[in-house]
């Protein structure tokens, strides 16, 4: 009894925090989607006009799908790239493990904007790649390579989020009981068989966590597509940003934000269902 009371006391700041800074704003956002304007008399008018605008215009739905595709590709690529890295750290790096881990994380300490902007300097006309290609005689005139396109956005997203992907996979690999690996080789399993049947399944919770860690934030990205996306690499975050920062239309902006939120939740629900995530986490 006493313990329970203490629990309530200890939990109340957290509950207050979540309520005030998460649930209340979320509720405000939902209410805003029914308003006719951001301020003034229109602020108090109830309307479904925003829903009509949003669902009546196919570009928004299409953009949501193409943004999800960009995020999905970026997530899969970063997992493919980060897995061997995490594997090396967990099983091969030995005493240098911590140092190498630090090396992976350090770039994340630099301003996000700078790291995105750096890609312009690498891929641009006067950039590193062009200098190398010119010197090798492969191109005659410098031109932006890959830059200002959907591919550039994916490349930069993979680069930016890789450290966050490597960490959960590393932790999952690290936690694998080494005696299981020994048992596998005692039973005559080859290196590949051990990896496929023992290590990979046991590391799947880490891989799933990594996927969520990159898929969700990249879906809301707007800086990277703004700087590198050109005319075909825009993402959903960009239209939300222009509703808030340019058009001053908070109601429509709120509806768009809500749409991303619900869309992400729905995708995750499907994903969890398809991959039987609970089994991995419990298993």
């Amino acid at each position, binding site marked *: 009894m*006493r313990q329970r*009371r*203490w629990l*309530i*006391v200890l939990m*109340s*700041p957290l509950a*207050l925090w979540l309520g*005030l800074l998460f649930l209340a704003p979320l509720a405000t956002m939902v209410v805003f989607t029914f308003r006719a*304007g*951001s*301020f*003034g008399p229109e602020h108090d008018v109830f309307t479904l006009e925003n829903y009509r*605008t949003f669902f009546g*215009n196919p*570009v*928004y739905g*299409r*953009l949501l799908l193409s943004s999800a595709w960009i995020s999905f590709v970026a997530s899969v690529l970063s997992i493919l790239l980060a897995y061997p890295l995490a594997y090396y750290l967990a099983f091969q790096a030995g005493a240098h493990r911590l140092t190498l881990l630090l090396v992976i994380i350090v770039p994340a300490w630099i301003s996000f904007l700078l790291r995105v*902007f750096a890609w*312009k*300097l690498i891929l*641009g*006309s*006067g*950039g590193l790649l062009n200098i190398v290609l010119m010197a090798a005689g492969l191109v005659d005139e*410098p031109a*932006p390579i890959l*830059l*200002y396109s959907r591919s550039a956005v994916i490349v930069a997203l993979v680069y930016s989020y890789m450290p966050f992907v490597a960490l959960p996979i590393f932790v999952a690999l690290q936690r694998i009981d080494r005696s299981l690996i020994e048992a596998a080789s005692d039973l005559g399993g080859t290196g590949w068989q051990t990896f496929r049947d023992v290590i990979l399944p046991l590391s799947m919770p880490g891989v799933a966590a990594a996927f969520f860690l990159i898929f969700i934030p990249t879906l809301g990205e707007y800086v990277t597509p*703004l*700087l590198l*996306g*050109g*005319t075909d690499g*825009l993402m959903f975050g*960009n*239209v939300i940003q*222009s*509703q*808030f*920062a*340019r*058009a*001053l*239309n908070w109601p*429509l902006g709120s509806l768009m934000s809500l749409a991303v939120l619900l869309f992400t939740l729905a995708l995750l629900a499907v994903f969890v269902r398809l991959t039987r995530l609970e089994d991995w986490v419990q298993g």
Partner: protein
Amino acid sequence: MIRHTKLWNRIAFVAAIWLAIVLPAACSQPAADMGAAGAAQETQAEADSLTVLDWAGYDAPEFWTQFAQTYPDVEVDYTYFEQDADALAKLQSGFRVDLVHPCSSWWGLYVDAGLVQPIDTSRLKNWPDVVPEMAKLGEFDGQQYFVPWDWGYESILVRTDKVEELPASWADLWDPAYAGRLSIPDSAEVAQVMAAVALDIPNPWQTTPEEDALIKQKLLDIKPNVLTYWTDASELSQMMASGDVWVAASVWTDTYSQLMADGVPVEYIDPAEGRLGWVCGYGISSNAQAPDLAYAYLDAILDPESIVNLSNQFFYGTSNRKAFELADPALVSLFKLDQPDVLQQTVFYQTMSAEHRQKITEMWDEVRLAP
């Protein structure tokens, strides 16, 4: 121990009540009408401080040394905004300032929402020298609500070493010769005006549905030429200097002069349809606490000796004709201020209704997201 727990429960309860009721009430207080205590504070505040909601950088001491000399005891507090939408949102949510500095296409929204008060121009001794074309933009229903202060051109900037034939008009930007080397700003407002000007549409700020359809098609037509949309001047500078972008639309004069200073071969075009022109200016907030100081400040920064610093140090235009004579000759020729009809030829951004802004934002989304 149990008594202790009760105490904590009570504290948490009181804290929750306080957070839920007292805090929001306290926060909304300034937005509501001030009571008697507020009125007393108001007169006192008038004597010692002035609050200006401004763009970053406009707090430079050169602009208001005169004011500081006349009112040495007055503290000038600057608060900043990044986008016009932010400034309007701040005032709409009850933020108290004396002066606010939005740009012309937003002025009407302030007047409609009652956020600014009419300005008695007879109280400004520098008012007769303000350029009439710009003053007109701040006039609503026969009353002056905004005092134009700074302005500049938005035109086409070209890398002369990369482009064989320089564009002579806005309409030339559609020339396939610039395919994949053009950058236009990621702004519904600029894109719409640019297309309207190229199409020879007389008033881009009040368009018919037929004109809207033409403008949208025109913007869809320019996409094959567009390499990327630029969002900020320093980003554009980098893309022009590196050679990614050869032709850029709606570029300000400060970017041009900076690239020239860096030795990048660029030319600032004088398009046949006229350059676009932005104008920003100050309005006095309806709930200003120190309106007299606001007038004094406005008059001081309008003074030719003060305002000319804007030209000579920041490469922007000034709204005071007398300051044209004091300005750096290089700037005078860049701004073509020596040509008498230059301001009549410039297409200044007019005020825009919220509906029009919403309409063009949606149009711009459709253009940007078209496959």
